[in-house]
């Protein structure tokens, strides 16, 4: 059971942790807004302060808290290349107060940004083996930095397989740049497969939920690390499917979404069993969270 209770005031840690309640809220300028799907756009941001801009680094899978002044704050994953942290993409679906208010802003407008927060995708741990990236819908945004990272360090991985699913072709993120991007991926020996639930007449790729792409992906369970991102139900189906194919639940990583008010482990909203999704996650080995997800905690 619990450690013996020693309730005296905790000694301050030798290196004091950062103070981060509400602040530092940095100021970021919207440089460009790229519409992706009927309800989703990518916002390219640069930090207004040059020194902060030069210092900012992030890891694939981390997120920022974006503030629309006077409206509120939302957790949004960084969707751009971690090799270029001086310009930050955030791909946002307009679903509520903050995300719709963001939609009303454009190039030159300023917003608030705190971050980056959270446990990233295990890019180093996956080195030496195969990387299987599975993205459903908006879930492509949080794994996109992982794809960039893998492309830039291509020789550190064996196969890199990217499976992308969406409701329909018009819901495919980064579609505008997709052919170019897809070609770029193929040039760097990334294997890419696409599938949509509801195809159009001229859709040349797969049809069905993203897990239907597993059969063609020639997954070698013993040497693969999977990064799975999408709606929770899709991640659970995909993870269970991969377990059945012989993968260890600890090498399947999922990205969990929960209500977040602070992003720094203080507000309590994102608790999942004993875990704080904001800082213990949002990326978790499936084995670490499956019981909590199934208990509905």
């Amino acid at each position: 059971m619990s450690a013996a209770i020693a309730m005296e005031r905790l000694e301050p840690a030798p290196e004091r942790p950062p103070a981060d309640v509400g602040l530092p809220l940095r100021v970021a300028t919207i440089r460009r807004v790229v519409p992706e799907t009927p309800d989703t756009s990518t916002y390219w941001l640069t930090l207004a302060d040059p020194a902060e801009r030069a210092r900012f680094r992030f890891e694939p899978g981390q997120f920022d808290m974006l503030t629309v002044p006077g409206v509120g704050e939302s957790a949004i994953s960084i969707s751009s290349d971690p090799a270029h942290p001086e310009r930050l993409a955030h791909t946002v679906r307009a679903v509520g107060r903050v995300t719709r208010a963001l939609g009303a802003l454009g190039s030159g407008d300023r917003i608030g940004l705190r971050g980056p927060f959270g446990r990233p995708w295990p890019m180093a741990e996956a080195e030496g083996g195969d990387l299987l990236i599975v993205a459903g819908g908006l879930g492509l945004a949080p794994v996109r930095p992982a794809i960039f990272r893998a492309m830039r360090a291509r020789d550190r991985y064996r196969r890199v397989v990217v499976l992308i699913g969406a409701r329909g072709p018009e819901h495919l993120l980064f579609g505008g740049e997709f052919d170019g991007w897809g070609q770029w991926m193929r040039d760097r020996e990334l294997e890419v497969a696409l599938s949509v639930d509801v195809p159009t007449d001229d859709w040349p790729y797969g049809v069905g939920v993203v897990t239907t792409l597993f059969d063609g992906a020639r997954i070698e369970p013993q040497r693969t690390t999977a990064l799975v991102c999408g709606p929770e139900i899709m991640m659970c189906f995909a993870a269970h499917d991969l377990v059945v194919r012989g993968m260890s639940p600890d090498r399947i990583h999922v990205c969990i979404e929960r209500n977040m008010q602070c992003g720094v482990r203080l507000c309590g909203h994102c608790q999942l069993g004993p875990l704080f999704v904001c800082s213990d996650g949002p990326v978790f080995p499936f084995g670490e969270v499956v019981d909590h997800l199934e208990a509905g905690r």
Partner: protein
Amino acid sequence: MVPLASCRKAGEPATFLREHRERKSEGTEPVRFMDRPAFGRLLAELARRGYAVIGPTLRGGAIVLDHVEGLEDLPRGLGSRHGPGVYSLLRRDDDRLFGQAPGPDSAKRFLFPPRERLATVSRPGGRLTVDRAADGEPPRYAFVGLRACDLQAVLIQDRVFLGGPYRDEPYEARRDGAFFLAANCTDPGQTCFCTSTGTGPWCRAGFDVAVTEIDGGMVAEVGTAEGREVLDAAGAREASPDEIAASDRAVRQAADRIDRRPDLRGIGEVLYRNAGNPVWDEIAERCLACGNCTAVCPTCFCHDVVDTASITGQEAERSREWASCFSEEFTHVAGGSPIRASGASRYRQWLTHKFASWRDQFGVPGCVGCGRCVTWCPAGIDILEVLAAIRARDGERDHDERHRTAVR
């Protein structure tokens, strides 16, 4: 110094807080005594030192914590009666100041206020600027008469706000400036169970001065150098062996009177493995989801962050406000149903957090046995009964498995 007896008698079942931290006998530090006038001088000395003195005081039929100017603001000769959904004050046949069990307030309301401004965002001429909320110097509180459970609750909130990877500065500023004149409990309530959580009735750590009220005055133990100075300034004399014995007896008797002795052994594991127990549904049918329990709980820390704009839109304020895991919005995610949509899942979250996941997060459970959530539950739900029911029906599962919503 006379070491006080442990609140747990030999042979009693081990509680979930296995080891009680005994006060160290320092030998040289004398135990003090204050008669009523000296105690009054102590309050004045705290005010003179610039503290906002906060203590129990009578307001609208309840003992709340508020500013106290002097002895006359403290409740005199008042006792309290507590039960599930029941609280009342009663007249005692003496003139004790600390003759009641804690009321609905705890230090939480001051160190972590219900609403507080965190920052101001303005855009003069369209340029966004951010300011740390500057509401002047943080208040320096001197808490008077805080009971052992509430002192432990402060130490637990320290772990929440200061022990993690991100330090909560507004909390820290108030916490660092605070003075604690704690009171060993001599009159526990009927919903108290601090002897089982290992958090009372003795104050064991975290105080500047700890007093025990006996006939004629207060026996006082020094916790810090400032505590000693304050006692000196009040003219507290050395306590006699009889006075010390009387204080020891008073708290021991209080411990003996606490008859709620829940079996908390392994309770965390019991709760974790009973997420699908039908007991949660049964309790949820009674629970009004009012959130009273989370508001009165001295350790509950969950909050919302709220942004509001001025009418002109040129200024915005960021605040935080207490939130409750009993509300549906607590787990709202845009474009979906809440993660914990059922009342049962929310009740389960509260109790499982207190007795299981809290321990995994912060190294200690989140319950100090103060009984407030029982006393101030309008539905009279008693967490100890819920815990006992879960234990008695360990392993029972909801047949329709409503909770295994798994994947929302």
